């Protein structure tokens, strides 16, 4: 599939790539945070890459993650990066896909925004910020997109209590 994209990426930006993998036929490149914008710009502008379509941005919270059907040694432990930010790109010209991943520590959950490169990431990055509290630096308007402004915390983080409610209104006649 897009193995050649991955090979070209490693050949061009080898120093910026932590590792590469293939999951269910999707090529994944783990990118260093400080090189993300350079790598993404190259992916967008290079004629052989031409990634013009921003598919999605999301995050994964690895807190207390235990792998299913994988060796237990892959389980998340204290001190490992807690968050992964996934950026899926597609080229409508060459019909190939690539996924970029950035690992982030819990107390340093921020990375440069890709909205200046693909405007379509604007709301997706806002959603990731809303749900996981990951800050996209350089985003033009990083506000919550789903939850109300009064909401405290980020509900899709694994340490957000499952049964916690933050009501806006309640009946005055119910104590």
């Amino acid at each position, binding site marked *: 599939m897009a193995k050649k994209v991955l090979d070209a990426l490693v050949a061009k930006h080898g120093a910026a790539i932590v590792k590469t993998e293939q999951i269910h036929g999707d090529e994944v490149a783990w990118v260093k945070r400080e090189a993300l914008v350079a790598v993404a710009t190259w992916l967008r502008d290079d004629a052989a890459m031409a990634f013009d379509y921003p598919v999605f941005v999301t995050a994964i919270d690895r807190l207390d993650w235990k792998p299913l059907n994988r060796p237990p040694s892959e389980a998340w432990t204290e001190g490992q990066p807690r968050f992964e930010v996934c950026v899926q790109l597609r080229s409508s010209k060459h019909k190939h896909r690539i996924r970029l991943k950035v690992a982030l520590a819990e107390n340093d959950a921020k990375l440069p925004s890709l909205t200046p490169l693909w405007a379509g990431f604007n709301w997706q990055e806002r959603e990731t910020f809303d749900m996981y509290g990951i800050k996209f630096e350089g985003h033009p308007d990083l506000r919550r997109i*789903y*939850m*109300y402004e009064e909401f405290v915390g980020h*509900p899709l983080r694994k340490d*957000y209590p*499952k*049964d*916690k*409610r*933050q*009501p*806006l*209104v*309640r*009946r005055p*006649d*119910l104590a």
Partner: protein
Amino acid sequence: MGVELTSTRIADAAAWAKHVREKQNIVDGATNWGRKFSLFTYPFVTACCGMEFMSVAAPKYDLARFGAEFPRFSPRQSDLLMIVGTITEKQGPALRRVWEQMAEPKWVIAFGVCASTGGFYQNYSAMPGADQVIPVDVYIPGCPPRPEQVLDALLLLQDRIQQGTGHSQLRLAREKALADAALTGHE
């Protein structure tokens, strides 16, 4: 000086009050009879239960047979709020405001488990039942409910309206009794 209240006059007053009350009951009964057959529905449709609501309103099950003829899309023109679907915490203020804008006396039906209890959406965003923000008269279980259940709920609500035991009817009666008591100085 002063007027001396004889036992006869007290008895007369009591008889007169009873007479007025009976008259009032007849008037209230007739009014409620009219109300229960001329409900104006405001469908607050948020989710998939809306499909069942359409089925109930459409000719096959035909809500119009029970007098709930026209869905009104302004709360000011309606007196039956049908909460059809999941209510989120973010929607709470909007739902409360719609209910406050409706004409008195007004009734509320929670259509389906999500509107009644939150259903299987037990999470950060879903409200655990619309009755957290407004009083609900009739709850319809089901995910979604069968149209027959909705018609059954409407009949239950009609009974409640006739008896004058809807939430808003009871509240208005209470407010009226308090106002009367304040006017005459009696508790």
